[in-house]
């Protein structure tokens, strides 16, 4: 990782989460996340991208302590999360690492004014504040996320706000807890195109002026490029490629990244041909055997890919790919 000198805000080491599926007669294990090691630095937006079912939301839930890891460890500011035993420690962690959800229409309680969520979070996580201080803090974070005039917006009900405004409430709730890292799970995918950019700009502003890091989970590579510093591409529960966002997108090393890139509709570019040749879909990883999980769709697959699971290798500074074929110097073009 590039930030080797300083301890990242959060990092994971070979994080895995498996789910048991099937009945007593056919026990199977779904590998939702396998051996994921990632790091999120100070004041950094890291985009976690991949298709549905690639395990990106599972990672968010693991980091939010909604799921317990099957194996592996999460370190927050150097402290392993498995060492957090007391309710107080857990509360402190969830305040420092809050989550913003995908659906702004179902993540706010419709019977309460929008001030309710923020005030509740403050009461729980910052009990030292008086009622007036809580209100002042709620107004402050509403101003920061662009919900102005804050005093008035705080009194509204969720149904009186547009989707974009509701999602800003989500960010305000997170921000009120003085977070170090916000876990944003597809925060803009339910919003209209004309509204999205405003939220993406807000994320950049939170990083630059409030100094928070953000894990931005998305399936939209163009928006990842717009806001993120680093980009992690997931495939079938594993990291396929990770690196500085411009490096990964300009010089994708993993064939899967190349496939994804070729499929992004871009009116300003000529039609890519890569995705036309590929009709596969990401596999459900049930009781996997060793080998690269992309091998059935990969035009470059060699014998080794069918036998050995590729480990992420650093090919360029801070830019790694889990692929046996990818080389640092040579251009491998599976899809273009």
């Amino acid at each position: 990782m590039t930030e080797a000198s300083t301890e990242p805000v959060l990092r994971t080491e070979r994080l895995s989460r498996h789910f048991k599926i099937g009945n007593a007669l056919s026990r199977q294990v779904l590998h939702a996340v396998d051996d994921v090691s990632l790091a999120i630095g100070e004041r950094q937006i890291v985009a976690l991208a991949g298709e549905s079912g690639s395990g990106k939301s599972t990672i968010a839930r693991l980091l939010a302590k909604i799921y317990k890891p099957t194996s592996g460890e999460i370190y927050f500011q150097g402290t392993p999360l498995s060492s957090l035993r007391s309710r107080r420690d857990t509360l402190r962690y969830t305040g420092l690492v809050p989550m913003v959800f995908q659906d702004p229409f179902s993540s706010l309680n419709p019977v309460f004014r929008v001030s309710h969520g923020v005030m509740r979070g403050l009461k729980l996580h910052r009990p030292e504040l008086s009622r007036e201080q809580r209100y002042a803090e709620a107004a402050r974070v509403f101003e920061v996320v662009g919900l102005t005039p804050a005093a008035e917006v705080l009194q509204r009900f969720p149904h009186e706000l547009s989707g974009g405004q509701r999602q800003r409430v989500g960010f305000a709730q997170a921000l009120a807890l003085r977070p170090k890292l916000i876990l944003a799970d597809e925060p803009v995918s339910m919003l209209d195109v004309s509204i999205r950019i405003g939220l993406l700009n807000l994320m950049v502003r939170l990083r630059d002026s409030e100094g928070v890091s953000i894990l931005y989970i998305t399936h939209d590579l163009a928006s990842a490029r717009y806001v993120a510093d680093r980009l992690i591409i997931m495939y079938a529960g594993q990291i396929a490629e990770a690196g500085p966002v411009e490096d990964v997108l300009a010089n994708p090393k993993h064939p899967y990244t190349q496939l994804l890139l070729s499929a992004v509709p871009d009116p300003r570019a000529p039609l890519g041909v890569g995705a036309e040749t590929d009709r596969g879909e990401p596999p459900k990883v049930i009781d996997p055997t060793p080998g690269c999980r992309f091998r059935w769709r990969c035009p470059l697959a060699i014998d080794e890919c069918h036998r050995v699971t590729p480990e992420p290798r650093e090919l360029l500074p801070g830019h790694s790919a889990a692929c046996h074929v990818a080389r640092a110097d040579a251009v491998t073009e599976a899809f273009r």
Partner: protein
Amino acid sequence: MSSVPARQKPSEQADPVPADPGAVLEVNDLSVEYIMETGSVVAVDHVSFELGPGEFIGIVGESGCGKSTLLFAIAQLLAPPARISGGSVCFRGRNMVGLTETELAAVRWKDLSVVMQSAMNALNPVKSIGAQFADAMRAHGVRSKEQIEGRSAEVLRMVGIDPVHLKSYPHQLSGGMRQRSMIAMAMLFTPELVIMDEPTSALDVVAQRSLMVQIKELQRDFGFAVIFVTHDMSLVSHFSDQLMVMYAGQVAELGATRAVFDSPLHPYTAGLMEAFPSIRGPRLPLTGIPGSPPDLARPPHGCRFAPRCPKVMPRCETAPPDEYWVDGRRVRCYLYAEAYSPQAPNEEPGSPP
């Protein structure tokens, strides 16, 4: 459902004579309103366009802009409280507005089919794919078992699915395969017009692109026309001939897709183009469009986009603009009021170059 009052033709409305007998579909001044307790909400406001054989029109807009209502109105699928309050939909020269269910049933699926947004909800979960195909064919008088099986297998192969899946149930297929089988089902009778409502929105980019390519290939082979509704305008950029941008129930801009992308005329279209971050080229800060679409129960007095428009002029706020013809494109904006006339020129409007 038998005949529903809402579908009855407005009384004085005479069947307009189609100007161009070659057009598969002609939508003239179509308006749809929702009757609410508090009054009516006009969700589709005087929309006109026409579609030639084998043509592909993309209809884009934000949620609530009336694009799905328009599509339902074209397919005569509206149910109360929505009703067509004016205009006509001529399919192959015949006005569909006011036809009875029996008359519509003969046309539906055979000549005109619809692919819905969510295949998971549109397919029957307790029937195999093959049984659902057979249903549709029997409803149109295909009785022979061989014929049904043969055609079902054929259309599945056309969309790249192994015919063994005729025995599969919807939940056994992946999202992409379900959408493909919906499209296969729409192809059973090689219709002349296929209407698609965001068929790819539940799919990932890779599956989305391959489905778009597939639709385009089928269209090339069988020559049907396509109406493709989406909120993602970059998706249709390489596939549609005409592009219609809707805003608050009205046509903001309509023209050849490439022309609209290369030089958007309406400030809303331009704003939408600016709202997409690009995957290539320089990383530019974008602004999007401030504000949000108007409440259609209380639309602005003037231009519906005026409250969000960066180029707003005093007159925009007082009276709504007409559609103006600008180099073969239609634009509803006062910016073009002086130089261009609101009268349609004689040549074919909005046809692809």
